[in-house]
């Protein structure tokens, strides 16, 4: 996973996440949207329009006063909470 920030302001962040596809990006986007400090989150995997760009770019907008990097870190942590909860529930059912 290679990260490259393409745009950054106080409440906005665009970051390229190398080596990932819809499998992880959609889970990440979905989880970020559940975060209350995040106003908008989306990702784009557009190979042609951006001149051969194939790595997904994640864009986050946060509420005023919240650093998007921190929000992204929390979002990633929330995915971990989900996977742990799922694994526990699954193993309990087996």
């Amino acid at each position, binding site marked *: *996973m290679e*990260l490259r920030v393409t745009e950054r302001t106080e409440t906005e962040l665009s970051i390229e*996440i190398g080596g*990932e596809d*819809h*499998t*992880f990006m*959609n*889970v*990440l*986007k*979905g*989880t970020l949207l*559940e975060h209350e400090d995040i106003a908008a989150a989306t990702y784009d995997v557009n190979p042609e329009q951006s001149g051969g760009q194939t790595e997904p770019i994640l864009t986050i907008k946060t509420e005023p006063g919240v650093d998007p*990097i921190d929000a*992204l*870190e929390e979002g*990633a*942590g*929330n*995915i*971990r*909470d*989900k*996977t*742990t*909860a*799922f*694994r*526990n*529930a*699954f*193993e*309990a*059912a*087996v």
Partner: protein
Amino acid sequence: MTEEYDVEFVETGDRKARFLVRGVTPAFANGLRRAMVADVPTMAIDEVRFIENSSVMFDEQLALRLGLVPLTTPPEGEFVDGDTVTLSIDVEGPGTAYSGDLVSSDSLVQPAEDNVPIIDLKDDQRLEAEADALIERGKDHAKHQGGVAVGYRHLQRVEVEGDLPEFEDERSQIVRGVIEDDGELVPTSEFDDDLSNRYPGKEVSVEDVPNAFVFHVETDGSFTVDELVTRAVESLEARATELEEAVQL
């Protein structure tokens, strides 16, 4: 944030199972499905060195057939990307070379299926080859895809609205998957996928239960269903951890 998930098995088996998960978002369910299909690594033969092949098929054709034979995948951590296991096969005709004739150099990596015919050999024909198996993901080649026909459907809630009007003909109402009837889970195959068999003379309504998904998971024999699901969740988790750590820097 606390997550409340609930998993309940509808059908259990080593290679085939159905289970209901409550509380997951569609995004997470799909991530899990995609991870099972394309991101859980399995062993498969990738390179074959032919010592003798006098059969009616070309080396390349046989190499493809050998590659598609499912091999048991060793426990996690035993192998990393790039490790190989050598298997050899030596069969002389007349007779058929089967996947079970493959002799592995590692007891953890064995053909999961012994009865797959590789090639029919006539008199004086012989197949002798050495093959390297390696561990990769379904993304790279379908032969590394451990999950077969992995999918999910919404759990559907069926409610009886009342009796059918007196002179109305009974019409079949086809539903597939698993329905929830008063909290009881019923696979639709039990009533031939037709609600009019289960509720004759009744008017029923069907609706999707939000965030409740019934997964159908089958494996090609590389590992059990439990293992496939657990490894898929772990692969998502590993990526989340990686992102979290990368962002902290």
